[in-house]
């Protein structure tokens, strides 16, 4: 049978969303017991991923992944968060990673969108433009 992990994630969210302290712990424990009973523990990572997605959606949070060539300073991160908050009208959660290949600049993913401001991409575009003219 095909397991709909999304439904489990939604159910878990409903169960824990208004819980606090001890009741939260009990809800989580019970959920794991249910999974174990139904032999669904193998699906736990998938359910957690779906839960994260659903949680973000409900709490109006947007994950923004940024790739840079070098470490960003705290003030730079704050600046990006501020801009993204305004642009998406959602609470921004930054996930940073470092990629030497970009040479410079910044690559920004959010939802299904990509804004590629890296030096690598600009060089590739320049190459294309030069080739197109000749």
């Amino acid at each position, binding site marked *: 049978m095909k397991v709909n992990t999304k439904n489990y994630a939604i159910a878990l969210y409903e169960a824990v969303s208004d819980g606090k302290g001890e009741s939260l712990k009990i809800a989580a424990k019970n959920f794991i017991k249910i999974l174990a009973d139904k032999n669904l523990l193998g699906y736990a990572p998938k359910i957690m991923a779906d839960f994260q997605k659903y949680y973000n959606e409900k709490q109006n949070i947007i994950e923004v992944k940024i790739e840079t060539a070098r470490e960003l300073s705290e003030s730079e991160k704050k600046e990006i968060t501020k801009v993204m908050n305004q642009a998406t009208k959602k609470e921004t959660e930054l996930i940073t990673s470092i990629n030497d290949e970009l040479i410079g600049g910044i690559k920004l*993913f959010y*939802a*299904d*969108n*990509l*804004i*590629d*401001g890296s030096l690598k991409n*600009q060089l590739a*575009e*320049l190459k294309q*433009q*030069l080739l197109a*003219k000749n």
Partner: protein
Amino acid sequence: MNKNYIIDLIKQQIQDYQHDLKVEKVGTVVEVGDGIAKISGLSDAMASEMLDFGNDVFGVALNLDEDFIGAIILGDYGRIREGDLVKSTGRILEVPVGQGVVGRVVNALGQPIDGKGPIKSDKFYPIEKIAPRVITRQPVTTPLQTGIKTIDSMFPIGRGQRELIIGDRQTGKTALVIDAIINQKGQNVTCVYVTIGQKEAKVARIVSELQAHGAMEYTIVVSASAADPASLLYIAPFAGCAMAEYFMDQGKDTLVIYDDLSKQAAAYRQISLLLKRPPGREAYPGDVFYLHSRLLERSARLNADYGGGSLTALPIIETQAGDIAAYIPTNVISITDGQIFLESDLFYQGVRPAINTGLSVSRVGSAAQIKAMKQVAGKLKLEMAQYRELAAFAQFGSDLDEATKKQINRGARISEILKQPQYQPMPVEHQVLIIYAVTNGLVDDIAVDKIREFETGLVKYAQAQAKATLEKIVKEKQLNPEIEESLKKLITEYKQTLS
């Protein structure tokens, strides 16, 4: 050239370089294999939109599900990995069209594969297009001469018609259509030959044959060979159709050959099964009928308000052991305006082209046949049918009355005259002459095994002695008593030179 000049030029161009940041829609590859990719993200992709997998590999979004996109990959899918980024392009798949493509051998994406450099064309047509609407069309009125006596006399094809060519392997289906292309020389018809799932060696042989007969000057060859991925086999006929449509829109006549659609259906079946679409009869998906009907519906004869161009389609279907009642053959038979049925039994008996005159039919072409041909060939089909019946009966060897004997003799001569070697399409006026001779009993006194010799001799004699009469047939398009008289005279004269 000055070295500094080049440096300055590049410097200038680098200074001119414009860069604007843009938001691109992306997704990630979740699963990839067998030419199919499952992609998450890309939430606003369109159906049959082109997707950019990077490294000049493109795909087409076919399945738009709730969480995933099922896409076919056009080209080398070996380098695509799980987790790769996929960008949407906002464009529907398109191919280059125009005069720059004519004379070239291209793949299903319109990229050249003949080693003659890039294609000079700045016009593109989408490969999928809605067929011309009713108000843009007009009935078929102009003949498309194939140069094959059996077809032009009994199953005439009109410009804008769709005539199926169906038969087992090795019955001369491809030979027939190659002759038809060769015969379009000087007829102002642009030809597109689409090969689907054929051996590269066969394609190379056909191209060199077309070149040898000067037919590549007005022909485009679209090749999706047996080694290409199924996705390319699936889109090749649509690409070929788009290239012909461009010329139709310019008011020109075009001929497209799909060789063959059974392999395209098999490729589409493969893609559909991999995309987990439910299988139906013979494991073909439910929309395999629509696959062929929407392709063949794009053949049309446009009326004068829309340029008056035409697109004639000759799809080919390969049957297994003569089974025309299988799924794909019945589908395509019902879509087209008639079929030419080739039989391996006839082929081995030496009747080449091996056309079964009983099962073949052309539903709209007779309106387009020139009157002269109609006059001489009107009784041909009936006589052939009677001959076949009597010949089967006469095998018992009993004594036959005079009338029956005469009928059998006539039939044997007709079927002899309809034989035709490959790469020798015949102009319509010669066909009229020779069919006139046989249907009017003027060759009844010539031995059956001498008929072919007589035919070539007569055509040569007519070209030397009575060119004016032949030209008159072409010009007046019908046989008036005067032309008929001179034809009769010509044939008797030639017979006298023999004795």
